[in-house]
């Protein structure tokens, strides 16, 4: 397990601190004894193989699942989140992997869902203006905010979901695979956005399978494996170290593949003269 020691001190005060979080679904332990710290102005990347428990952890922090054991400390206070609105009210915003948008509602209605202005006489004009402001900040390419989500592409939906998470000016943003469905320009915009959010002093937790994106923005990389902590890395860690922690061994399918290709290459070079 590689831990580089003398890193620069984390940017700000502790926003979120998890100690011993476990979550089991029946006989399956999805999470076991997870510890995680996020400071203000810090991007923490959560990486791991499929089924490592990344999404479960994010859903636990979003109030969708309740942990079986362990404590969550948010801004110095121990908290329990019984439902998603509790998390939202605390200042934890989440962009879920499945985006959780209502396809039959338009973009404005989705962005403001559950947070409408003037509940007894909806202020559509103000909500539309705010939606455009949020979307323009993300350089979104959305033709109209008055069309139902069903008519948007995957990337456009992702942008809407991210715009929605920013609406409440949260203290901590959880992004579950924020760039998975995005094009080149949108990916760059989202990465820029993550940096902008961090510079405003917010904590960010980001799940991604894309090591390039992770290295580009993460301040720390937390590896999960089979529902357990499997090391904390910094962006300058080698690919081999990261892959080793993710798959659980230095000798794994990725390195074996590398070695095989290397050997084949040498063989073909050797056969030349």
């Amino acid at each position, binding site marked *: 397990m590689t831990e580089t020691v003398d890193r620069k001190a984390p940017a700000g005060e502790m926003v979120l601190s998890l100690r011993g979080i476990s979550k089991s679904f029946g006989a399956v332990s999805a999470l076991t004894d997870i510890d995680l710290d996020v400071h203000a102005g810090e991007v923490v990347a959560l990486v791991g193989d499929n089924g490592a428990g990344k999404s479960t952890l994010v859903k636990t922090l*979003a109030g*969708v699942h309740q942990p079986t054991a362990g404590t969550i400390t948010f801004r110095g206070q121990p908290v329990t989140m019984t*439902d*998603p*609105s509790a998390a*939202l*009210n605390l200042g934890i915003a*989440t962009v*879920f992997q499945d985006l*959780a*948008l*209502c*396809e*039959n*509602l338009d973009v404005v*209605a989705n962005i403001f*869902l*559950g*947070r*409408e202005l003037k*509940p*007894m*006489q*909806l202020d559509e*004009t*103000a909500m*539309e*203006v705010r939606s*455009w402001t949020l979307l323009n900040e993300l350089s979104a*390419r*959305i*033709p*109209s*905010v*008055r069309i*139902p*989500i*069903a*008519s*948007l592409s995957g990337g456009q939906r992702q942008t809407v979901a991210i715009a929605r998470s920013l609406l409440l000016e949260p203290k901590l943003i959880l992004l579950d695979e924020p760039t998975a469905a995005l094009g080149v320009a949108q990916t760059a915009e989202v990465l820029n956005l993550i940096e902008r959010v961090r510079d405003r002093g917010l904590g960010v937790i980001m799940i991604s399978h894309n090591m390039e994106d992770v290295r580009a923005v993460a301040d720390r990389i937390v590896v999960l494996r089979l529902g357990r902590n499997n090391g904390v890395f910094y962006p300058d860690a080698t690919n081999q170290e990261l892959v080793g922690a993710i798959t659980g061994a230095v000798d794994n399918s990725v390195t074996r593949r590398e070695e095989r290709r290397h050997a084949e290459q040498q063989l073909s070079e050797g056969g030349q003269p």
Partner: protein
Amino acid sequence: MTGNVKDNALPATMLDRSDERLKHEAGIGGAVRAFIDRVRSGDLGSLPVVVGLALIWTVFASLNPIFLSSNNLVNLLFDCSTVGVIALGIVCVLMVGEIDLSVGSISGFASAIVGTLWVNQGWPVALAILAAVAVGGLIGSLYALLYNRLGMPSFVATLSGLLAVLGMQLYILGSTGSINLPYGSAMVNFGQMLVMPRLLAHVLAAVPGVVMLATGIRTISRRREANLSAPSLGSIVLRAVATTLVLEIIVLYLNQDRGIPWMFGLFVGLVMLMNYALTRTQWGRSMTAVGGNREAARRAGINVRRIYASAFVLCSMLAALGGVLSASRLASASQQAGTGDVNLNAIAAAVIGGTSLFGGRGNAYSALLGIIVIQSIANGLTLLDLSSSLRYMITGGVLAIAVIVDSLARRSRVSHGRA
């Protein structure tokens, strides 16, 4: 505010007109083209029911000219109001993608409660009505409890409710079997005779147009201020004038006979109130969201259980109110009240009017349009002296067509990305 300031005068600066791929339809011709586009992609709205209604009326009018006489149409409006109020409640539960099969029994039970408390026990009539509606609300909260806490599908919960509530209705009516409500009392007059004064009816018919104009002008100025594109003043004036003209002609025609029943006025008032609640309040937005994607609504922080509860309670209360209205229409509370086709007529009305059985799509006006279709069929066939056997078959056929149109339009919406 001048109508000739065109939206495209400042194209680059408007917040919602910066994307060059978006087609901007301006003016009245553009509105018509946008409408045709919408219909083609399966976003039919109220179009099928309006076309169907025109068809039904043409057929019946050609078979028997009395059908379109103002006298008959006033009767039609009286008949519409009772089941229409029940259908309005059905719209609520359909919006969240659930169903209430017991509305007929609840309406019958409510009429029995009013009969017993008012006639037999000597309660003041208003108190008896309140009690009946409150009992309806209790039944609705029981359904909400079964659905939210015990995970019982609303289909089954309300199906057992259908039997249980019918049993309670028979129980409190006892051996007598039916209670006659006194003729000449305010409640029976309300259900059988009371109509609006002519002038008042004309004034009320002008209200929607005025409101459309006022809110339209307010929207234009607010959107202009916020640098958003706004509809042209001309199109709003046109819509307001057209609406007012149509309503005034209807009122004029019905005033040839007795006039607009107060009971129908109550029904339309409830429909408009529900329309406002569904489209312009946070509650209505949450209802649509829950019907469209329950999990997304939950993750957005909406209290999904409370939304379901409000839908079930509102539906049962409106069913009870509908039962009270039909008791006043029939001047009796009997064992037959609320049985037979009341249940399915109410559900069919909401669906025929364009509220989707799949949830998340519909509007309050579908109850009004749908019940007019169903009562027109019943009324027309009665005028032709045809038996109820034929009426059931035809209503069943119309319901089937409505559901087919709903499913086909849904498929088309999905393929056109309008879901």
